[in-house]
Each structure stands twice: as structure tokens, then as C-alpha cells.
């Protein structure tokens, strides 16, 4: 239960960090908050020969306003900093509600937003929430920057679009729409455990009817799963019991989860549908109160 030997670099600038990654290619590995990666090293599931520790790189943390009214979140921002940000619930209530669901407070003290996104555990909250919010990720290498949408970033079980020479540096979250309904909910065995099934969703209303919606589940596949057929069903419809029942059925039918020691595929399909219905109900009942509208 000890990490295998490695060479350790602790750069203070992003330039240094990306040139180290360039130099070491596939042997190099980025260390951020370490809340996912340190266990992998201790269990010897990961044995990188070079570690590039980002924790002393300046300018990679903080929550800033984006030009378009959205958020620009530095990848090294600790999850706890989001949790403590008194303005976040008004600026993005779905993101603010997701953060306390991540691990335990000792984990969030150290864990970073970017670390969780790049680690890409299929049961983690932040990947699903960034997909639901239509966030963009800024990936920086020695050659420059590129921007990849969260939806394109996740490629399958713990697989992402990031290259070995790149660092996730910023998460750009579009402006929150006034009047948007939202909810996040999950089922886990114990508080703080990874979700067996979870859902993050929002709905924009036009009067009593839904104009647009996004339903993203986690813990039910290799990556965050958007259920577009259920979103389609919501569009133009009121969020009444009959519609929600049908959305539940569609979600259960559309999901293709695996069975593992935590839950069977059948359980996940069933619970995915039920959770989605309940989350929509909660979103409708809460209304737009306190969501920055």
C-alpha cells in the first residue's frame, strides 16, 4: 500500500508544468488534489515514473465571472472552495448543490474540480454536472490551448479526450438561465460513497410547459449518460404526473448500465427512472426560488 518510486517535480508555473509533461510523454502523470490518484498509486494500479505536481502552480485556482455571465473556474480550485462560495448558489444552483455530494469534507478540502473531471469516475458528480451544464474544458499543452466540450471530453470508462502532454486548466460554465428548474439526486449506500445511480437535470419553462431540458445520469455507464429521448418527451409538455411517469419509463428503458458488486443492471435501470421522476418533481415544486432568477 505504498506508491512505487517515481521522480517528483513541483513546478511553480504552468509553462514549466506543460514542458515537463511534453518532455516525459506517457511516463508523466499530473498530480492535483490526489484524492483519486493517490489511492491508485498506493494500490499500484498506477505506477507513473514521473509525477508533475500542480499544487504550487500559481493562477490555476479561483472562481471568476466569464464574459457572458457564466463562470470560469480554475481547474485547481478545491471542491471545498466552491462549497464555501456564498455566491455560487445564485450563480449556478445546480453546481452548488452537486459539490456537497462529493466524498466527505476532508476529501473536498483537498480534492480539486479539475482532478475529479479528469479522473472521470463514472459515478462522480462533477463530470455529469458539467455535461448537463454544457461546460467547456480548456486543455493546455506546450503547444497552446484547445477547448473541448464536457460532452466530447468523456469517451468511455475512465477514458477522456485529454492527451498525456495536456493539463486541464479551466472549466467554463455557461451563464445560468433565469427561471431554470433544476435538481440533482443520487442513491448511495452511505453518505459520501460513490453513487450507485445519480441524476443531474434542468428544465427551462415557457409558461406551464417545458421548452428545453437536459437529463444526465451518472453511475449507470462508463461516462455521464444523457437521455435525449426523455428530454424530447419533456419538451412542450407540462411537468405533470403523467409526463413524469412516462419520462421515468423512458429513462429506465434507455439506460444500459452494467452490473457490479454495488448494484445490478436491473436495479440501476429501475432506480435511474425513479430518481429522474423524483428529481423532476422536486425541481418543479421548488420552482425558481433562490436560483438566481
Amino acid at each position: 500500500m505504498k506508491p512505487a518510486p517515481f521522480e517528483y517535480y513541483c513546478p511553480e508555473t504552468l509553462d514549466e508544468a506543460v514542458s515537463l509533461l511534453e518532455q516525459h510523454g506517457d511516463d508523466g502523470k499530473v498530480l492535483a488534489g490526489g484524492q483519486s490518484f493517490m489511492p491508485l498509486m498506493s494500490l499500484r494500479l498506477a505506477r507513473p515514473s514521473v509525477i508533475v505536481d500542480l499544487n504550487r502552480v500559481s493562477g490555476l485556482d479561483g472562481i471568476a465571472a466569464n464574459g457572458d455571465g457564466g463562470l470560469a473556474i480554475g481547474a485547481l480550485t478545491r471542491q471545498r472552495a466552491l462549497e464555501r462560495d456564498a455566491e455560487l448558489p445564485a450563480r449556478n444552483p445546480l453546481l452548488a448543490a452537486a459539490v456537497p455530494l462529493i466524498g466527505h469534507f476532508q476529501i473536498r478540502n483537498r480534492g480539486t474540480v479539475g482532478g475529479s473531471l479528469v479522473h472521470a469516475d463514472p459515478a462522480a458528480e462533477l463530470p455529469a454536472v458539467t455535461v448537463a451544464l454544457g461546460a467547456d474544458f480548456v486543455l493546455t499543452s506546450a503547444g497552446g490551448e484547445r477547448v473541448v466540450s464536457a460532452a466530447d471530453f468523456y469517451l468511455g470508462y475512465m477514458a477522456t479526450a485529454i492527451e498525456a502532454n495536456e493539463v486541464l486548466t479551466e472549466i467554463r460554465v455557461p451563464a445560468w438561465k433565469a427561471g431554470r428548474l433544476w435538481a440533482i439526486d443520487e442513491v448511495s449506500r452511505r453518505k459520501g460513497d460513490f453513487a450507485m445511480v445519480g441524476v443531474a437535470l434542468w428544465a427551462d419553462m415557457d409558461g406551464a410547459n417545458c421548452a428545453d431540458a437536459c437529463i444526465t445520469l451518472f453511475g449507470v455507464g462508463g461516462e455521464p449518460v444523457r437521455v435525449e429521448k426523455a428530454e424530447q418527451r419533456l419538451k412542450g409538455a407540462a411537468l405533470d404526473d403523467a409526463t413524469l411517469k412516462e419520462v421515468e419509463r423512458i429513462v429506465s428503458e434507455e439506460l444500459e448500465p452494467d452490473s457490479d458488486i454495488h448494484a445490478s443492471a436491473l436495479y440501476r435501470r429501475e432506480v435511474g427512472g425513479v430518481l429522474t421522476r423524483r428529481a423532476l418533481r422536486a425541481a418543479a415544486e421548488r420552482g425558481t426560488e433562490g436560483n438566481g432568477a
Partner: protein
Amino acid sequence: MSTKSILNLTVNGKAYEKLVEVRMTLADFLRNELDLTGTHLGCEHGVCGACTVIMDGEAVRSCLLLAVQAEGATLETVEGLADGDRLHPLQAAFQDRHALQCGFCTPGFLMTATAFLKENPSPTDAEIREAISGNICRCTGYQPIIEAIGQAAPEAGGKPRE
């Protein structure tokens, strides 16, 4: 860059300078290099909370940090809680409420609760439950632990809420 590095840090008010292997975790450093064996290791991969220490004011799992990452940091471990023979209010409350049996998990609970009560000096039971949800106890049962933390709160949290 090599596989060893000089580390400077302060633990329980005492400054240390040591040459450490970069792959050594902070937990192993405290235990094996500084002989501060009060910090316990249950799982060594971030699940049990036994290794919880306070680094620059925040509770963290010391098995999930490399020692070298604590360069320049100020740490508090369970050894720093008591004042000579006088137990810290949390320790006294744990004793009073029988909040430990084998004691293996206790340092982690104490450091978790210390950090938690600093931030929330008059917590509800539900908040205490949530705060200790990342610490596993295999023998006592959590009820006495919750009671002990609630009992110690006014003293341990510093300034009770008006």
C-alpha cells in the same frame, strides 16, 4: 530532480527539517520519521479516515498526501491536542461518553471533530453525523461519538454561537 527531497514543516508547533523519499506519504512520514504514531493508518487509500490530520487549518487524509506536499505547512496531529496531562475537551468528552473501545479510529475522529467544531461551534446532531461520515469506527458504534462531539462543542469550538 531526484527521488529524495528536503522537507521543512511545523508539526504541533515544532519545526522539522528532514530528507524524505518523495514517494513517502505524509502519514508514513509522521509515523516513521517523526515517531508521531498517534496518526493511525487503517486503509491507506482514503476510505477510513483514521489518518486524518489538520494541515493549515483544514482536516485532510494524510495517507492521500505525499510528505513533500506538506513543504512549508503547519500540521496538527492528535499528539498536539492535550495540554500536558490535561485532556483536550474533545478527548475528555470521548472518555466521558465512552466514545472509544479499541481506540484505533479515535485520532481520526478527534482531528475531524476538531476541524469541524472550529467551523461550526454549535452543530446539530445531523451536522455532526455528516461531519464524521468519512470516518469509520469498527467497534464503538457511532452514537457515543456523536454525543461526545456534541458535548465538547461549546468548549472545543472556541466561541459558542450567540
